[in-house]
């Protein structure tokens, strides 16, 4: 049993179109710095977990593949899948394995090589995530379309505009330009977004996160191991909540909120001792699941960074930039950093580590004076949500 679990090592590959590497090479790109920052070797790992959605890529036995490539055999492992939240699901496995006392040091890897398939195939495969039979087979929903149903509902209910959504993309590109690991390192303006072609109304090309290759890795350790190894640089997992939503969109109560996210947030805040009515008072910043622009705004509300219906005002007033009420996605988010499905949740954990330990690149380091960071990682369209709170001080 370990009451507290720490992130003691992190690594991040360059996200983007990575035709220059195969899957294990891409994995090693983030594993190597994770071992180095933790000052550990593969033999020190008790158990390892791989978050990977796959299907579009050739290799299914990724844990075995990296066991072979990186000398992790014969340690136990598994691959976990929770769509776009696969990375956070993998962290949950590592976190609970250490909490239960079954392991002391767990390596968590998130990886996706989406570019092994042509884009149309990837568009088809992502759309199939939801209720395949009732909503894909006959109505051809795509991933942007599922979220667009929410984007439309939000605009109609609260009076937000497509320009408000564009502002999310502008912010995330602004910070992506300062993140050397991001897929897109260029700034854009509202006009760029507004002039781009429609993908699924109201979303245009620049409202959408890209199709990305990438890997991210964290090494988790028990409190005892942290002491034993004398680890100075670490952050603690203060709480994590997980929620699940219905497969069919038609079974949802609301299209201006993700029920799985509000549920996961409540659990995470409670575990971390954060006042659910005023969480921004406790947080130095957050990474939220901006697979499209509107869901970032909905996340502000599900996470209670503001009142219902006021999320679009936060971005309009630039309150989620550094210096605002709460900086959000200042690594570029999924939108500009890229969204390699299984790697995204782990990438968010890497960002929490970098921000809290003030290791972020120039121009995108938040002020750290509360010592807590939140990550919000959604699989599908709220089919799964994981909310995790990281902190400099253990509970």
């Amino acid at each position, binding site marked *: 049993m370990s009451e507290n679990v720490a992130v003691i090592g992190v690594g991040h590959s360059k996200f983007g*179109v990575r*035709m*220059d590497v195969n899957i294990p090479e891409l994995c090693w790109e983030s594993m190597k710095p994770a071992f180095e920052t933790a000052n550990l070797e593969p033999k020190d790992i008790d158990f390892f977990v791989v978050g990977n959605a796959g299907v579009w890529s*050739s290799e299914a036995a990724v844990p075995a593949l990296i066991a072979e490539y990186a000398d992790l055999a014969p340690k136990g492992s598994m691959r976990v899948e929770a769509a776009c939240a696969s990375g956070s699901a993998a962290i949950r496995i590592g976190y609970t394995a250490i909490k239960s006392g079954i392991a002391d040091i767990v390596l968590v890897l998130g990886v996706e090589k989406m570019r*092994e398939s042509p884009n*149309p*195939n990837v*568009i*088809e495969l992502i*759309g199939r995530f939801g*209720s395949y*039979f*009732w*909503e894909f087979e*006959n*109505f*051809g*929903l*795509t991933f*942007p*379309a599922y979220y*667009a*149903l*929410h*984007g*439309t*509902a939000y605009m*109609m*209910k609260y009076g937000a505009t497509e320009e408000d959504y564009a502002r999310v993309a502008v912010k995330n590109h602004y910070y992506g330009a300062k993140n050397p690991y991001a897929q897109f390192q260029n700034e854009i303006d509202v006009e760029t977004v507004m002039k781009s*072609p*429609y*993908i*699924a*109304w*109201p979303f245009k090309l620049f409202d959408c996160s890209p199709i990305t290759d990438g890997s991210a890795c964290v090494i988790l350790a028990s409190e005892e191991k942290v002491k034993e190894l004398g680890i100075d640089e670490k952050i603690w997992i203060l709480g994590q909540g997980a929620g699940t939503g219905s497969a*069919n*969109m*038609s*079974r*949802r109560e609301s*299209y201006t909120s993700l029920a799985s996210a509000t549920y996961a947030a409540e659990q995470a805040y409670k575990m971390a001792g954060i006042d659910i009515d005023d969480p921004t008072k406790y947080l130095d910043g957050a990474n939220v699941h901006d697979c499209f622009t509107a869901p970032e705004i909905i996340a502000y509300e599900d996470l209670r960074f503001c009142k219902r219906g006021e999320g679009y005002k936060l971005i309009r007033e630039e309150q989620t930039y550094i210096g605002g009420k709460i900086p959000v996605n200042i690594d570029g988010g999924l939108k500009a950093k890229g969204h390699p499905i299984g790697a995204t949740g782990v990438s968010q954990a890497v960002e929490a580590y970098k921000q809290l330990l003030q290791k972020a690149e120039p121009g995108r380091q938040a002020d750290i004076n509360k010592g807590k960071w939140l990550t919000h990682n959604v699989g599908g369209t709220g089919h799964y949500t994981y909310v995790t709170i990281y902190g400099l001080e253990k509970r």
Partner: protein
Amino acid sequence: MKDEIKKVIEETGLPIVQDEKSGAAQWVDLRELRLSYVISVENIKPFYEGLKEGKLLGTKCKKCGRLFFPPQKDCPSCFDSDIEWVELKNEGTLETMTVVFVRPPSFSMYDPYPVAIAKLDDGPKILAWYKGDPQQAKPGMRVKVQVSKRKEGYLMYEIAPV
């Protein structure tokens, strides 16, 4: 095998090409797989009988009265499978919508299609293609559910303005 890769193999003895943008060497996988599933509808056959008559059917738990759409044969509230098939109200209000411009390749035979979610008057919600002008559609407006024949020749329900 695609002709281009056949040609590369003939010329070089290997299925290796250069990525157009990066120039990085790529092995072109030759083991193509076509996927199409066989999905059991044995327990929801009445739903399709209903479609043939232009009706939208759901299931109702005989014990607690819970309505299900999409239909399901088991009630998790009562742990009971004693359900009846009921015709759902084919009118309701529009909740939200989108227009799918970039379609999956398996839907490439269709023009961009509007998709709507409607709340039927007796409770359940339904997602379907919207047959109407999406620019005129507003949440709260009255809509109906009707059955029509798809371009692919089969029957399916759709949402349309009243």
